[in-house]
């Protein structure tokens, strides 16, 4: 028995390591591709779009204009989606005849999808029509992801330019991201997923009579729909909103171990590639790899800790003589390795897709994803992970710059108090939101009564919900009845502020850096691409996140873990 587990573990580790290797190989390939998309003079077909919408692609914008257009674009998208959801009962492509969403749920969902969060307080197959899924959700899956990448690209431009107010043209960026990055890759992705058995149709849900004689005469409803197309962009765009409530645990979303591996890869494809693009576009390839290295270090640490804690047995079962890992909540199709990989990837990339039930995992198995989510820069959401990382790097470079006796600079540009405001806002807004909103939740009757498991586990559930919302992750811990006015509105607020406050701060930084003069290189500047700076950066990321969340975590998952294991 013991020998068998060891064999399995070896296989698991080979599986996990091979994922890391494949991911490292795709990074420069797709990184180069993204670089080309943004450095190309003109791309096939884009001219038509600009002419149609009356956009002058040559005209660049300063940060204020860029921000204005970006926010406007997102607000319009949000409203369109809000009304589609609200009115879906009167709209076509609704074979199941679903009624409109209640207003608070519609608002929550609209915010959720426009902010790249895809927090779902509803279950897709029981609530949303095909039109809502496609026009509302899938469209926003593309656009919210494109928005994130756009912001990252604008920031990279700001960092690499000097003495100019301009950071690019929002409409060009969003068009190129959508047309030349997201669409083609998700198209190929969808085809591959279909090959694995993911459904793609507009059929009404199937009714099948069960063959089990014990359940004689009973029927099972099998939901259908355009799943593969939504699935690919759900993962590629680090959206995470599943077609089905069970998300990637559902066999029509994620049928095989190969599709599981592939889905994990899709989720981190762009976030990793962007680190390479960063190095290319700023002309500092080493720095790009340093960012990749720091993110990868955090990821690997989390992945193997997650695997370790998922392999642990539950003392309650050990007492009964049952050995082996405690697998409640895990999908047996994927096993411990497939489950821990998926959850780590999904929370690292702020995707929020799940292939298991986190609520059932052992406490630390739930806490690691929690911390990944809270940091938001372990690869992070498309674009968001990179721009969040830049904000952390600015803070790290500021303190490090002081320690080498220079007025601090980042990428050879001097840092001002306003830059520090923007960086701090970009890094700690989510923690602020988590702390404030969870405090309100625990002081309000409705907040507490929605918790299914009281005690430390309840604390984890609420903290997780807000962490997921504020960091635009969208995964749910479950165990919290979140579809009510209070949670719909507070999580919507967390998602909205967690997304757009940060984006405004980042675009401010883009504008501010674009205007700065470049300090000439000397051997006495701090090297941002040195090994020691990488370690320092990890320290700063951990300190800012752990310092903000440690007390709360100590009363949630840490306490829970101790309650289970200290009882021995």
């Amino acid at each position, binding site marked *: 028995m013991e020998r068998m587990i060891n064999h399995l573990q070896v296989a698991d580790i080979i599986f996990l390591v091979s994922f890391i290797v494949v991911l490292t190989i795709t990074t420069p390939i797709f990184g180069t591709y993204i670089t080309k998309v943004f450095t190309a003079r003109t791309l096939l077909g884009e001219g038509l779009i600009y002419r149609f919408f009356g956009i002058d692609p040559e005209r660049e914008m300063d940060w204020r204009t860029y921000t204005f257009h970006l926010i406007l674009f997102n607000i319009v998208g949000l409203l369109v989606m809000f009304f589609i959801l609200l009115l879906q009962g009167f709209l076509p492509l609704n074979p199941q005849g679903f009624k409109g969403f209640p207003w608070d749920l519609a608002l929550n969902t609209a915010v959720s999808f426009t902010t790249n969060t895809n927090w779902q307080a509803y279950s897709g197959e029981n609530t949303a029509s095909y039109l809502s899924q496609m026009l509302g959700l899938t469209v926003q899956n593309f656009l919210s992801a494109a928005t994130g990448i756009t912001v990252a690209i604008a920031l990279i431009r700001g960092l690499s330019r000097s003495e100019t107010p301009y950071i690019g043209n929002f409409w060009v960026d969003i068009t190129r991201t959508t047309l030349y990055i997201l669409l083609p890759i998700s198209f190929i992705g969808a085809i591959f997923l279909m090959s694995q058995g993911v459904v793609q149709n507009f059929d009404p849900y199937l009714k099948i009579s069960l063959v089990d004689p014990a359940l004689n005469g009973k029927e099972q409803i099998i939901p259908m729909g355009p799943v593969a197309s939504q699935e690919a962009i759900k993962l590629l765009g680090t959206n995470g909103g599943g077609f089905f409530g069970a998300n990637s645990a559902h066999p029509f979303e994620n049928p095989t171990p190969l599709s599981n591996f592939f889905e994990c890869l899709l989720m981190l494809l762009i976030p990793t590639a962007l680190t390479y693009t960063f190095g290319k576009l700023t002309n500092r390839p080493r720095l790009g790899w340093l960012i990749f290295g720091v993110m990868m270090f955090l990821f690997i640490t989390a992945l193997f800790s997650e695997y370790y804690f998922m392999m642990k047995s539950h003392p309650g079962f050990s007492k009964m003589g049952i050995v082996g890992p405690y697998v409640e909540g895990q999908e047996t199709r994927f096993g411990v390795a497939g489950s821990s990989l998926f959850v780590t990837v999904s929370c690292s990339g702020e995707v929020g897709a799940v292939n298991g039930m986190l609520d059932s995992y052992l406490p630390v198995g739930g806490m690691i994803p929690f911390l990944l989510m809270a940091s938001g820069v372990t690869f992070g959401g498309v674009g968001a992970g990179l721009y969040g990382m830049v904000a952390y790097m600015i803070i790290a470079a500021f303190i490090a710059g002081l320690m080498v006796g220079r007025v601090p600079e980042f990428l050879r540009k001097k840092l001002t108090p306003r830059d520090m405001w923007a960086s701090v806002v970009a890094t700690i807004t989510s923690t602020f939101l988590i702390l404030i909103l969870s405090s309100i939740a*625990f002081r309000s009757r409705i907040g507490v009564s929605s918790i299914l498991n009281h005690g430390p586990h309840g604390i984890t559930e609420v903290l997780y919900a807000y962490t997921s919302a504020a960091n635009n992750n969208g995964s749910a811990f479950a165990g919290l009845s979140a579809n009510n006015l209070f949670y719909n509105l507070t999580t919507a607020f967390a998602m909205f502020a967690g997304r757009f406050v940060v984006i405004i701060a980042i675009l401010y930084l883009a504008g501010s850096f674009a205007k700065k003069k470049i300090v000439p290189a000397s051997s006495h500047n701090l090297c941002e691409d040195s090994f020691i700076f990488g370690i320092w950066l990890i320290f700063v990321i951990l300190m800012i996140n752990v310092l903000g969340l440690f007390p709360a975590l100590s009363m949630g998952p840490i306490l829970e873990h101790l309650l289970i294991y200290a009882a021995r």
Partner: protein
Amino acid sequence: MVVLGIDRKLFMSAVIGAFKKLNPIELWHNPVMFSVEIGASILTVEFFLELLGVKKAILWFTGWTTLWLWLTVILSNFAESLSEIRGKARAESLKTYKVSVVAKKLKEPSFDSPFEEVSSIDLRKGDIVLVQEGEIIPGDGEIIEGAALVNEAAVTGESAPVLREAGSDRNAVIGGTKVVAGNVIIKITANPGETFLDKMIGMIEKAKRRKTPNEIALEVVLVSLTGLFLMVVVNFRVLSQYLVEVTGKGKPASITTIAALFVCLAPTTIAALLPAIGIAGMDRLFRRNVVALSGRAIEAAGDVNVLLLDKTGTITLGNRMASEFIPVGGHTMEECLWAAIMSSIADETPEGKSIMELAKKSLGVRSDAIPKKVKVIPFTSETKISGVEVEGQSYRKGAYSAVKDYVEKLGGTVPPELERVVSKIAMTGATPLVIVKDKDIIGVVALKDILKEGIKERLSKLRKMGIKSIMITGDNPLTAAAIAKEAGVDDFIPEAKPEDKLKLVRDLQKQGYIVAMTGDGTNDAPALAQADVAVAMNAGTQAAREAANIIDLDSDPSKLLEIVEVGKSMLITRGALTTFSIANDIAKYFVIVPAAVSPIFPQLDVLNILRLEDPYLAILSAVIFNALVIPALTPLALKGAFYKAVSPNKLFLYNVFIYGLGGIIAPFIAIKAIYHLIELFVR
């Protein structure tokens, strides 16, 4: 107290100052400490409520925590107040020179003009005064007539008198200094209260400097963290209330506990010492006789990557000195030396004196062997040569071309090797002077620029710090190159006109360099005003001093080295203490969180890795540590962190190791020690 370098009286006034600074209006400028004061105030109210029995809690715990929170604020104030007072003490010493004296106000700028005696306080800009030997100069001004030796010990602390004379770049005098020899007529350039001395006193006394952008940027980080921790402790209380409600066990974290947690987590160490670091930086410079007129200039000094230096007076001594004699035209060395002596008998210039000295030494003659009765032929701009007529013979010396004309006019011949000798001397960066006896050219004297002592070492030290030096000189490229090579400057600008300096500063800045410049002349003023770090020599003109942001009282241009060091160490101190402050929080979490939660869930005591049994004493120990670390690090804040010109990665690693790793480990040990110490008193 010896460490802090102050006496008992100063210490007491610093203590009083620390209490005065509790005034919230004054403390507001330090938001982090202000929030600690609010915390302390809330706990004080809490303490009285508990004392009066309105609220039930552990009175001793609230009492002691309150006391230590107040002490945290006071100790922080003390550090600031101490650094201010040290500066003030120096200002006091300057003030003693600021006494009113009787000034002789002239009607017109002439030594014969009648004067009236007025008090120096009544002197205004533009007034003309006479200052005679032994008198105190009544106000800042410029000498317009005459020359004098002035003792400037009042401002510089240097007792050797300096020469000040009209019409030169060294014509500025400072009120309160004393004329040791000579009579001068001075035009007053500053109204009372606006003089240099006044400004300096004001600068040092009003240590309420404006925060530099860098300090503000750091404060942004500190304030944000403080805000974050405020939310953390509010959330902490809410969550513990929830746990108590659902489990019915224990008590939620009390106000005292969360106030303690907040103050421990907030970056109080760096916030407390931040003002002191800035003030102490200025003070450290002042002790090296450098007055920084803004904190920003010192910070910028830490960043300087180009230094512009005037050759004369900075790299070389002001005067050239004779270094070599070369006889020509078949004359002996003895003849050459004698002719050199004779031609320089009446030459009072430093160059002339140096020729005399070197020749006498080489020849071994005594002064009495030299004829006294001579007819002086002074240097004129027409002839460009000078010399004497003695015992029927004429001796002359001058530049090659002037002497050639002179000799040819007299019908003499120029030795064929002369041109070669002259140009060879010029190649080495020295100036050749040709010596003539009657119409015979006897030899050539090489006048060499003498490098200032230690200049080479200082320039190479600057290079190690990453600062490139550029020499500006009016010399021809050949001479300039030779001197540049000898002094080890990185680059030089030959044949520079005064207006070139401003252009050069601008060009360098356009390329993104942070430019430092030292200067003393009026024509340096525009370039000084443009430079990021402008160091004016105290001996320089008023215009130069006004354009500068740093003034060097010793007039030693290589002082920039010290300024850079102080600037860098000031920045390092800030970074190091920030890192230390944040790293400390880890230990404090491991002390306070288990202490606060274990009454509800004893299982969390696993996190109590220091094994502190009594939760209240544990929290109190953390608070005490947090307060005591401020005075423990005050000397570091005042002295500045260690700086050495090594590679930035090495320096960074060193500081991360000491303050980061040290900051994680130190509080574990210190809190454990404090816990067991106070345990002795409680039990």
